[in-house]
């Protein structure tokens, strides 16, 4: 069987077909923008251009002159979506609606003008930026993995090839030896991006050395951390980069079968990866006799069924085998006994997406990015109380201050205004990570530095929180999550997380004493020590780190029964401000438990023992005379 189209030829054909493109409109089709209607916008562009008599090209199939309309993966700036970029000028329009399409066509496509009102405006200064590369959110990043993510049409394999894609895979299949590939990856210093930070090259080398009739490569796309969506964006935006990484890995270790395990909550990612696998099979890049090398590699895309613990490698493999996703003790490591008992490499999406570029640029150039102990870049999902939320990428060693101030555009208060003094904490690494404070803002981000302060890179969730967030409540929230997701295999994890959650709830609901905090701390250590997998081992991290950096807030909750952020309902106290209250009696009538008393036209009083803290009085008062303490 040989239906293989040489990639050089595919590249040339693409370039030839692209020659006639006068302008290109890239409409972000990541989940965020699709949710805001970007697909309808794409159709509108086609409709208007066709009505005006222009040749609108959806797929570059032949040599023709016209305007190329394409979708792209997530461009990262989700909050400003739907995003529309006009090439070659790279003008970026934000929050585009269907009604704006006609104006864009007239101004920027037919002519070379600008629709001023749709251009990004920096909220702090009001300055406008027309070009994508100039917008501070992008200009302050170092996009390496994500570079192609927001530009490429993820459903066009030829465009990926035209950008140099699959060249590394071809080299790996035809020229390089197994050991050579492993050495390149080891030299690059690439570490697993899924959280653990184990050197990727070493993992490959171990698997390569284990002799077996069958080996597997697995791409772990079970991105379950709440607050993280980097892997989803790569799977949706540049699925071929993952396939290339898997193919290189397969050649390095001698595997002929691979699985991409994608979370059930990511239907678009499943669709795009499946589409990419089919396209690669058609082009002869997957299947038998790849690149006429006589080697085979097949990929199956598997959808998860909703279990956070399946992000753990041994649990993920159980899941592929059709079992409950429960972790196994290690050793034996997957490199020795993995999927169906065979040697297996299991890598995270971002790790695999880095492979192609590393092979192409060489390990030395890759090492020049980032730090000595952590080479390359890392993507982070930046969310929470900041001006710009979205997907970002920075070299290792970047400080949190740079990310929050320059890329995120600063912290906002509860009303969404930038005041400059509202920063409270940043939660990094999801439920396994920790909460950092002001004093860590200048810490260079890498695996070791974060570990030393009780957090971790994790998969890269970065949630910035302002002063309206209660740290005890955040710890409770994460504990609720891990307690829910504990698979139940280890007793200390199953029961321990439950008890920790109870203790934390006692604190937020005002039933706790100082002993509660001590017990919580003691239990946290037990859960850390007595659990088998990383889920249980790291589950107490949010509690331990908040106890370390925000202990006074815990103490306030137990001794003064006060929540300074005003988030814990049970600790709220409603109070009437005497000089504001005119004694109209409206609140007293609204109160469902008759806790408000007072004479007409005289300041009223709230009986704290009767009050159920429902907030009805505040809503009813027309004079803002009732406050919460």
């Amino acid at each position, binding site marked *: 069987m040989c239906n293989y189209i040489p990639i050089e030829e595919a590249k040339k054909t693409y370039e030839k077909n692209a020659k006639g493109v006068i302008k290109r409109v890239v409409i972000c089709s990541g*989940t*965020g923008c*699709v*949710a*805001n209607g970007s697909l309808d916008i794409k159709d509108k562009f086609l409709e208007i251009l066709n009505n005006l008599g222009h040749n609108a090209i959806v797929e570059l199939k032949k040599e023709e002159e016209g305007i190329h309309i394409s979708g792209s993966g997530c461009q990262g*700036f*989700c*909050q400003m*979506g739907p995003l529309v970029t006009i090439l070659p000028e790279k003008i970026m329009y934000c929050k585009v609606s269907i009604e704006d399409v006609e104006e864009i066509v007239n101004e920027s496509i037919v002519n070379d003008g600008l629709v001023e009102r749709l251009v990004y405006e920096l909220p702090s200064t009001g300055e406008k930026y027309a070009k994508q590369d100039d917008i501070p959110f992008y200009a302050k990043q170092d996009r390496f993995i994500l570079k192609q993510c927001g530009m490429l049409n993820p459903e066009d394999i030829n465009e990926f090839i035209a950008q140099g894609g699959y060249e590394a895979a071809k080299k790996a299949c035809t020229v390089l030896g197994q050991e050579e590939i492993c050495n390149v990856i080891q030299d690059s210093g690439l570490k697993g991006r899924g959280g653990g930070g184990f050197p990727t090259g070493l993992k490959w080398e171990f698997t390569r050395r284990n002799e077996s009739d069958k080996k597997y490569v697995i791409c772990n796309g079970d*991105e*379950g*951390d*709440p*607050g*993280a*969506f980097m892997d*989803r964006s790569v799977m949706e935006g540049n699925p071929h980069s993952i396939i290339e990484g898997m193919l290189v890995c397969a050649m390095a270790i001698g595997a002929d079968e691979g699985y991409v395990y994608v*979370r*059930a*909550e*990511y*239907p678009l990612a499943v669709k795009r990866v499946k589409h990419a696998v089919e396209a690669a099979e058609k082009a002869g890049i997957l299947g038998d006799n790849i690149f006429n090398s006589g080697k085979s590699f097949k990929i199956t895309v*598997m*959808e*998860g*069924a*909703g*279990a*956070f613990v399946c992000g753990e490698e041994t649990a993920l493999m159980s*899941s*592929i*085998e*059709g*079992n*409950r*996703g429960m972790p196994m003790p290690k050793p034996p490591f997957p490199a020795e006994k993995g999927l*169906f008992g065979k040697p297996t490499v299991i890598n995270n999406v971002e790790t695999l997406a880095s492979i192609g570029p590393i092979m192409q640029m060489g390990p030395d150039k890759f090492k020049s990015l980032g730090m000595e102990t952590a080479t390359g870049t890392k993507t982070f*999902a930046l*969310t*929470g*109380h900041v001006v710009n*939320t*979205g*997907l970002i990428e920075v070299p290792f060693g970047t400080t949190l201050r740079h990310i929050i101030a320059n890329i995120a555009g600063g912290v906002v208060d509860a009303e969404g205004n930038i005041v400059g003094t509202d920063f409270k904490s940043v*939660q990094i690494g*999801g439920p396994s990570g920790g909460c950092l404070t002001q004093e860590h803002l200048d810490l260079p981000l890498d695996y070791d530095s974060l570990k030393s302060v009780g957090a971790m890179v994790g998969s890269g*969730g970065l*949630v910035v*929180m302002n002063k309206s*967030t209660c740290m005890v409540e*955040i710890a409770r*929230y*994460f504990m609720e*999550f891990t307690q*829910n*997701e504990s*698979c139940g295999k280890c007793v200390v994890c199953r029961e321990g997380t439950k008890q920790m959650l109870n203790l934390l709830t006692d604190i937020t609901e005002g039933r706790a004493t100082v002993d509660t905090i001590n017990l919580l701390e003691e239990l946290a250590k037990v859960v850390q020590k007595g659990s088998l997998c990383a889920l249980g081992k790291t589950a107490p991290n949010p509690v331990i780190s908040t106890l370390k950096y925000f202990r006074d807030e815990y103490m306030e909750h137990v001794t003064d029964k006060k929540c300074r952020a005003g988030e814990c309902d049970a600790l709220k106290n409603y109070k009437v401000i005497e000089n504001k209250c005119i004694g109209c009696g409206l609140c007293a009538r609204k109160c469902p438990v008759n806790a408000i008393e007072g004479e007409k036209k005289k300041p009223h009083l709230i009986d704290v023992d009767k009050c159920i803290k429902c907030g009805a009085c505040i809503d009813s008062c027309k004079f803002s005379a009732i406050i919460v303490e």
Partner: protein
Amino acid sequence: MEKIRKFERVCEIINEYNYDASKLIPILSAVQDEYRYLPEEVMTFVATSLNVAPAKVFGVASFYSHYTLKPKGKYVVKICDGTACHVKKSMDVLDAIKEFLNLTDDDMTTNDMMFTVETVSCLGTCGLAPAIMVNDKVYGLLDREKVVKVLENIKAGEEE
């Protein structure tokens, strides 16, 4: 008659996966797509066809949150309570949904089998927090009023 047709489709699904017990998860997902839940007799049928114990199939079905053993509504509303949504008050949005659809914590499916509401840990659309997903469609940057409007529109579309 209805039952026979039911199992016919299950047979097709199992056939597509070559009676391979290691494909249990994709098989159950496909079965659930068909019936919107996993009826007990269908699970037993799957187990027998794959030559594994019914307890194993039930064990897998009850382990993963994607599977449901009770019938679900036509529209499954997944409300995200990931970190980003949580700090942006996703629980207020949930309260608004529950109020609008008259749901209680014990029963999150409407009587007319139109809506089922679930809380999920993260939809991965953190840039649009707080967000919900109705079947496969994501709605973001919501608040109490906006979410009610989304549900009203779905209801209106159904009545047409």
